[in-house]
């Protein structure tokens, strides 16, 4: 092993430069030319100021906005602390949290009846999930309509316009981007 030490050290350093500096620099250079917006975080600007990223969920609690999923990232949607709850299926803390969320969801959306959609009360893996399911959006539509003083059908039409289908018609699940939908609400419906 001893006569291997010098080549080993040299190889480690050479590979560090090749794969640790040249390769990331090459990707960064090309990405900044080809996909500048995506490479810099898909930020959404309004009046010249960044209001969020179309890929990163943010907290909404007011009734006139659609609400995202519960988040375990920090105090909710904190990108400095991404992650899930890591509560297992037989955790009593999970059960208590879910029952409380179900109760609040029903109180906030009195026109909704029955069992709640799973994403409405179950926390995501990243804590930053930008999406909700169509079922969850539909359930919140009457509340948003009432808070904005418009017909629920106008809100439903907006949801429908922002529905993203499965990728290539097969992969993943249909979904709605909460921040993008709420921005569209502010623009087209306005607030009371």
């Amino acid at each position, binding site marked *: 092993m001893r006569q291997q030490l010098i080549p080993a050290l040299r*190889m480690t350093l050479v590979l560090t430069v090749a*794969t640790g500096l040249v390769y990331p620099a090459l990707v960064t250079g090309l990405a900044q030319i080809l996909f500048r917006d995506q*490479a810099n975080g898909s930020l959404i600007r309004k009046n010249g100021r960044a209001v969020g990223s179309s890929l990163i969920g943010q907290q909404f609690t007011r009734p006139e906005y659609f609400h995202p999923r519960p988040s375990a990232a920090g105090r909710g949607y904190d990108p400095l602390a991404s992650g899930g709850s890591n509560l297992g299926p037989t955790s009593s803390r999970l059960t208590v949290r879910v029952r409380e969320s179900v109760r609040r969801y029903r109180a906030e959306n009195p026109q909704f009846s029955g069992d709640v959609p799973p994403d409405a009360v179950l926390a995501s893996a990243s804590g930053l999930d930008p999406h909700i399911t169509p079922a969850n959006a539909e359930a919140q539509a009457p509340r948003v309509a009432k808070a904005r003083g418009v017909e629920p059908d106008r809100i439903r039409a907006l949801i429908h316009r922002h529905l993203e289908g499965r990728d290539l018609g097969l992969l993943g699940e249909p979904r709605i981007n909460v921040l993008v939908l709420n921005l569209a609400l502010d623009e087209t419906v306005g607030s009371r």
Partner: protein
Amino acid sequence: MTETGFLQIAVYFLAILLVTRPLGAFLAYVFAGRRTFLHPLLRPVERLIYRLSGIREDAEQRWTGYAGALLAFSLFSFLVLYLLQRLQGWFPFNPQAFGAGNVTPDLAFNTAVSFMTNTDWQAYSGEATLSYFVQMAGLTVQNFASAAAGMAVAIALIRGFACERAGAIGNFWVDLTRATVYVLLPISLVAALFLCSQGVIQNWLPYAQVQTLEGGTQIIPQGPVASQEAIKELGTNGGGFFNANSAHPYENPTPLTNFVEMLLIFMIPAGLTYTFGKMVGDTRQGWAIFAAMSILFLPGAFTAYISEQSGNPILAASGVQQSPSNLHPGGNMEGKEVRFGIAASALFATITTGASCGAVNSMHDSYTPIGGLVPIFNMLTNEVIFGGAGAGLYGMLLFAILAVFIAGLMVGRTPEYIGKKIEGKEVKMAMLALIATAASVLLFTGASGVLDLAEGSYINPPGPATGNLNNQGPHGLSEILYAYASGTGNNGSAFAGLNANTPWYNLTIGLAMLIGRFFIIVPLLAAAGSLAGKRRLPASSGTLPTHGPLFVTLLAGTVVIVGALAFFPALSLGPIVEHFLMHEMRVF
């Protein structure tokens, strides 16, 4: 189970099947030093690396030299990565001003071992701990190097079978360089750019501050993510740039990137089965290995999917819809992202643990008991269900040696595999690897279960080490078992509720990773050296054919019985008993 869910799994498997042959043939060309379409561009790079490192391309090594080179390279990889972390405050590309205070010595040890052994277990949270410089020049480098080293070992072992009465099994430095230059770098570059096009970030900007619609502020981490994401999957490493790993929208923004990342994970391990067949001169031998891996993979994928889709009766009783509809995926969505839903999450979990990748797009800790049993089982088989880049193939060949040995015992003949007599030395080396890894998982899990510290201890907070758990009851045992299975299997995924960033867990899991890496690699290289010296015998009427369904079944059975049965008692006390308790609505 829904139709689209089933189709996603089927289409994925088909895609892997399609990529196996062309990639496998390409790998065989590369490692034989034959000209490929990339040579006009990359041959000068390869030669430059040899010149700068002082390596003679034509020098062949015996198994001892090969293993020595690998160990020396791993040692320096470890040292460089350890120092980079501890000294990160001195280096550029550090807009958040992270320093040594963010990385304690035991954490730096754990992380350095983790990335050097291709495990990528993470006891830290990337966005709050490491500078862009360490992520690139430290972690990304080891993502390449540890994968290339794994591939080199697989190729060396194949040469042991393929060559005739030879002393040498190749040159580690050459295999390492070729794997990096012709395979890992080009595929990563293309994949990274594709990921960028979909929204994965790639920049050196400071963290972005935005004002949210409701008037709050949100600080969004940035960084060179795509370049690391691509090799993280391709090299079956799995270490996330962010804490949430491939669940983070900046690492895995769409179902399409998710599909591509899953392809990257299995692509090299699957391709290497064909490389094996091609190098030993009988591609049926490679397809037999592929088939054995597949019949271990597909039932796991469907079991995890069906279990997660059926959901959790405790949640159903709490008023949460659990059966799918057109408007939502149903099932156990705790710890899963809406864009992936149930099928693409369960499939990813099965792939990432079958391969020793360990990237996660959903939080395994929140899986139903049986859904979580599949990843644990996959890791406990020593990561041979396609397995790591290189590690999957050499792990499966280890089981093939045992399978023909067991068959030989049954009929009373000296076992042969690929024309080589399997004798005492090879079987002893294979068993050494299996026993060392099983002992590592079970002993460390047991020790963590009973550890109870007095006031003022350094290695863990005082009191029982079970205080590090996030879940009580049987799920707590699963958290510990998962940690050591993941460390020993060089996987790196976690039941992440366990607080593993204490000296006790950092050091013992670090040790488990070293055992899981080198107690397999060194014995296997010894076996390769011994096999290389033997003559290749022509098949006779008494030879067990190792390319038919009989052998495939035998091989898969050996993996399940020899590899995983040792853990059955531990699994009964963890996920299996939790499954029954969940259906009795018991919580802890």
